[in-house]
């Protein structure tokens, strides 16, 4: 699957403290979007799915433009329904029935960013005016979860909120969310003491996850499920790791191209820029996977996300150097996932679907309604969304 992110606008009605996209009034002209779509199809390896995500800023501020771009994608000569996956990543403040109808009709996956219960959400995710967002986002997530069983929520955690991680999972589950992606802010000032405490915080999530499973209310929690899959499959496979700059691109409203949406900054060029929709792409020219000497002898190297160039960059300033925090976080999440696996498998086979492929929404419950004969089964890959923290 090749990932193409369209930063349709850099306007946003929020001012989240950790956001990596600079705010401006720039909106992507439809002509720029069309060129980006051409590049998206042209730069997706043969036989792979074209994953196109609407991103911002807040993309739903430009809902009309999003509809125009979707229409343009669907009339593109290379478009085929089964080959293209569309998604939108929203801050959850602008959800409406009109938007929901459209997303459902056009089969666009909805992903909402919410860091957790009000005391966590409102720390970093506030309106431009400083007003808290938790009440409106909570209401909208509840409505969206009823409408979209595969609704995904991205929650970002930082040193000052990591201790509430299990509370975040419990809160989102109480709103009806079953797909929860927990993403650390790698650019935050994580200390050695934070890293030492991580196994305890992650273990709390593991215990909660196990409890929900035993109550037959399974959740998909990226921190656990993605690592169980990786353990069972003997490491990340080639198609699961980030391919920034080769099969992963972000196109800004001004038409500049970046190897990942987390690196767009002001969206008008700069160090990470690898081209423009008019002049085309140039090679990234930088190695992404971590080459720390410690990784060469680490038994967990192939189970670890050290391949993520932007996470490395935000931790160390280099695409090819993993940070001590990333290392600690990966070790803690792998250990947590392994403990959960051993605990739950003692009671009977629980994770056979994780072994055999990419875990997805359908893997949540054996009791889930079976699709009718001929009905498409939706496969939602793990590795792409795990990197978003917008």
């Amino acid at each position, binding site marked *: 699957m090749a990932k193409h992110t369209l930063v349709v606008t850099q306007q946003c009605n929020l001012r989240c403290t950790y956001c990596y996209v600079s705010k401006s009034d720039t909106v992507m002209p439809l002509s720029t979007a069309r060129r980006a779509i051409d590049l998206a199809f042209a730069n997706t390896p043969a036989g792979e799915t074209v994953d196109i995500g609407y991103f911002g800023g807040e993309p739903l501020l430009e809902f009309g433009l999003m509809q125009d771009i979707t229409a343009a994608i669907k009339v593109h000569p290379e478009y085929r329904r089964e080959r293209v996956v569309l998604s939108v990543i929203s801050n959850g403040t602008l959800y409406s029935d009109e938007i929901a109808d459209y997303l459902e009709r056009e089969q666009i996956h909805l992903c909402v960013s919410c860091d957790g219960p009000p005391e966590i959400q409102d720390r970093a995710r506030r309106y431009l005016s400083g007003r808290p967002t938790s009440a409106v986002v909570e209401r909208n997530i509840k409505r969206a979860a009823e409408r979209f069983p595969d609704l995904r929520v991205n929650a970002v955690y930082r040193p000052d909120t990591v201790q509430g991680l299990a509370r975040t999972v419990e809160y989102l589950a109480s709103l009806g969310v079953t797909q929860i992606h927990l993403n650390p802010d790698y650019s935050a000032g994580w200390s050695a003491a934070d890293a030492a405490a991580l196994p305890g915080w992650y273990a709390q999530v593991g215990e909660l996850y196990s409890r929900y499973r035993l109550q037959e209310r399974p959740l998909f929690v990226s921190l656990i499920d993605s690592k169980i899959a990786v353990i069972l499959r003997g490491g990340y496979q080639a198609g699961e790791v980030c391919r920034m700059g080769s099969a992963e691109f972000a196109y800004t409203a001004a038409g500049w191209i970046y190897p990942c949406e987390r690196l767009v900054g002001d969206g008008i060029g700069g160090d990470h820029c690898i081209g423009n929709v008019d002049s085309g792409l140039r090679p990234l020219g930088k190695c992404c996977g971590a080459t720390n000497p410690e990784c060469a002898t680490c038994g967990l190297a192939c189970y670890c996300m050290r391949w993520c160039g932007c996470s490395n960059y935000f931790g160390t300033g280099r695409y090819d150097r993993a940070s001590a925090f990333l290392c600690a976080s990966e070790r803690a999440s792998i250990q947590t996932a392994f403990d959960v696996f051993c605990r739950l498998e003692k009671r009977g086979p629980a994770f056979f679907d994780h072994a055999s*492929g990419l875990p997805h929404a359908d893997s949540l419950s054996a009791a889930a309604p079976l699709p009718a004969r001929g009905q498409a089964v939706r496969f939602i890959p793990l590795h792409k969304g795990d990197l978003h923290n917008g």
Partner: protein
Amino acid sequence: MANSTDYILDWRIRGIPSDVWVRFSDAIGQLVQKEKLTAVDARYLTTPNQANLAFAGHTAKVLAEPTTRGKAIANVTEIYDIRGGMKAAHVHYKGAVYMLNETQWKRFTALVVNDFRAKLDSAGAIGFDQVMDISEVAASLG
């Protein structure tokens, strides 16, 4: 059991098998032999949930409505990454699918767990001091 075209057809219908099957191929072969497992006719497992039905003893119902091979082939122009997710315990071995019961699945996961434990024991760690040095160097270079 099948030639390469059959594999492609099977992957298109049910998903590309995970590489774990290749990694533990010898051990899975021994498991298949020891447990005297019989390959499922994968042509009829057209979705993960049909596999589940088959495993749950509804084989006759599933087989009563077979997907025609010709119809499926018409759709096989490209392979998308739709692999996996079969909602029943199984292993792949030499292109065939073998359903497992609880005890057999535990025997398979024991292989994976033992292999993983050894790796967990040899995990390294990146020290905070060292990474601070790298960051400082990067910052000084602008």
